[in-house]
């Protein structure tokens, strides 16, 4: 597939220059593409470093799409059955329970118990507006607050929405990036069948990863796919959601790769924060399309690399401290998870944007 693309590479090094893993880990994407040009063997653990931030692909002047080269390498390892044990577990769990955490499918809607109103199944709604929960947000206690919060925001604005509940299957964004094309196809088929069966005509996603794959890899859906920040921004503008108070802490915003540089949604979360804070949020030096990847994508939530090095999340926390921020806000559950550990240690908190909004409505 990509074997011809790599021949276009002129080894300019822009990819490695942009890569969040370059320099501090053995991962060198330019070198990997070079080896592919000459059909040389590549060390088996290297492809797993990639976080799928796609900066290399965005910046490559020759459209080599290095991040796809990585996916192809991973696919080959997968067909050989030679992949890290934790990745194997995540994929096998996704096959059986439709989520990489191995949590029971039957409990996918348990988060709805956190809100004090009924959330209907999509089939019971008039407007067929689907709130797609996302695996980590359905099951991880830390992240479950996000769908609960967004539900409250939509509900307070009188916007009708429904969920798939147990019928929701992993969107497959990370699965595809881990190289399991067959499993991705099965997930896509299942979700598409559900969208069709229930006549879904709008999808609100809570994770930029879900949004990314629905928009770009699910074919011509004929369905509008938004990240909730786009929707809530609209609601705020219309006055459907009102903010009663102000969020008094110093907040710096971290752009998630899958929302920001990959899908050009930079302003909506900032607008929401500005409204909640009464002033603009602080900025990192690497912001917007130059944002520093949290290293949660591309299967990195399920795989720990062997090398020890200073994680990007630690650099972010350091910078946040230096600028006097008290809270790092972001709009992706993987960024939340990756930033939170180092942040909490240094006395900072990490909040998903919906958590800040819910405190001031």
């Amino acid at each position, binding site marked *: 597939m990509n074997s011809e693309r790599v021949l276009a590479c002129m080894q300019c090094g822009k990819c490695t220059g942009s890569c969040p893993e370059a320099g501090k880990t053995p991962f060198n994407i330019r070198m990997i593409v070079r080896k592919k040009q000459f059909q040389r063997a590549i060390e088996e653990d290297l492809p797993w470093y990639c976080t799928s931030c796609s900066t290399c692909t965005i910046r490559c002047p020759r459209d080599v799409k290095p991040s796809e080269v990585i996916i192809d390498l991973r696919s080959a390892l997968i067909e050989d059955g030679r*992949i890290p044990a934790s990745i194997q577990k995540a994929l096998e769990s996704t096959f*059986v329970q439709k989520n990489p955490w191995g949590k029971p499918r039957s*409990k996918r809607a348990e988060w709805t118990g956190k809100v004090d109103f009924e959330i209907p199944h999509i089939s019971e709604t008039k407007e067929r507006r689907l709130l797609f929960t996302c695996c980590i947000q359905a099951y991880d206690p830390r992240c479950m607050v996000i769908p609960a919060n967004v539900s409250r925001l939509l509900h307070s604005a009188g916007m009708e929405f429904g969920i798939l509940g147990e019928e929701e299957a992993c969107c497959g964004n990370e699965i595809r990036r881990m190289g399991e094309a067959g499993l991705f196809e099965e997930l896509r088929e299942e979700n598409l069948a559900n969208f069709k069966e229930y006549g879904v005509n709008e999808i609100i996603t809570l994770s930029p990863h879900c949004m990314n794959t629905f928009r770009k890899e699910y074919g011509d859906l004929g369905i509008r796919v938004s990240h909730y920040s786009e929707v809530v921004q609209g609601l705020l503008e219309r006055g459907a959601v009102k903010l009663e108070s102000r969020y008094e802490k110093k907040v710096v915003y971290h752009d998630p790769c899958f929302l920001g540089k990959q899908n050009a949604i930079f302003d909506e979360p900032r607008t929401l924060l500005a409204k909640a804070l009464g002033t603009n949020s602080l900025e990192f030096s690497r912001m917007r399309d130059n944002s520093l990847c949290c290293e949660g994508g591309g299967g990195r939530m399920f795989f720990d690399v062997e090398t020890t090095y200073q994680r990007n999340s630690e650099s972010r926390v350091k910078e946040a401290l230096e600028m006097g921020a008290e809270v790092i806000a972001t709009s992706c559950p993987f960024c939340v998870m990756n930033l939170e550990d180092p942040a909490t240690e240094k006395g900072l908190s990490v909040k998903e944007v919906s958590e800040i909004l819910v405190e001031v409505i």
Partner: protein
Amino acid sequence: MEIVVFTKRVPVTQEEELRILGDGQSVDLSKLPHRMNDWDNYAVEEAVKLIEKGGGGVTSVAIGDSESDEVLRRAIAMGARDGFLLEANEVLQDPFARATLTYNFLKKENMPFDAIFTGVQAEDEQFACFGGILAALLKIPYAAQVIGIDAVEKDHFVVRRELEGGLQERVKVSLPCLLSIQSGINEPRYVSIMGVRKASKVERKVFKASNYTDSGKSLVEITKWVYPPKKEGAAMLAGDVGEICSKLFAILKEKGVYQ
């Protein structure tokens, strides 16, 4: 070397709350996802590794309803040459009944084998008996909980059996033999969806279990299903530091990890 591996399709019950139906008549498994018994993954992988090294073939056999074809396809995707389904629509709870059925099948169909592998136990019933009973019926040597096959010779294996507390027992077992394979003996290869699709092209033969069943061979039966006594979260140990230490050591002793 010809190796026959028994594989089972089991319900995935981790983190599910199971419901007992009727007045203890059965357990509701209707909404549960299923997959290959975890131990069987290791058994298939070990068998495939042996024949990849020394030549031969692996035949996977499953006893169950038609859905059990899923585990046969998986075994073939891992490297088994054949998959045979012993189709039985009712679950046989008595391991003796299953072993007898299997014994009759192996004899009637003249299945050649140098070794038979099973997993140590099935995730659902956790009897750990099928292999041992079958080995005795076949009058072949048996070694359970095999955590390593150290030597493969023409007429015997040298294997390590997993005991408790990190100890292992090395035994020499003549061929043909039956081994129950312990998890952790190897790292089962990943089976991709594409791999399973390719495996679907290999024919899986179906045999009717009723052709091999001896009537009246159930030696044990289940009279009722019951729930365990309720657990209310963690039982908190209280008292001063000294008392807490004693209580903790008592628990460790009871669990058999501390003497």
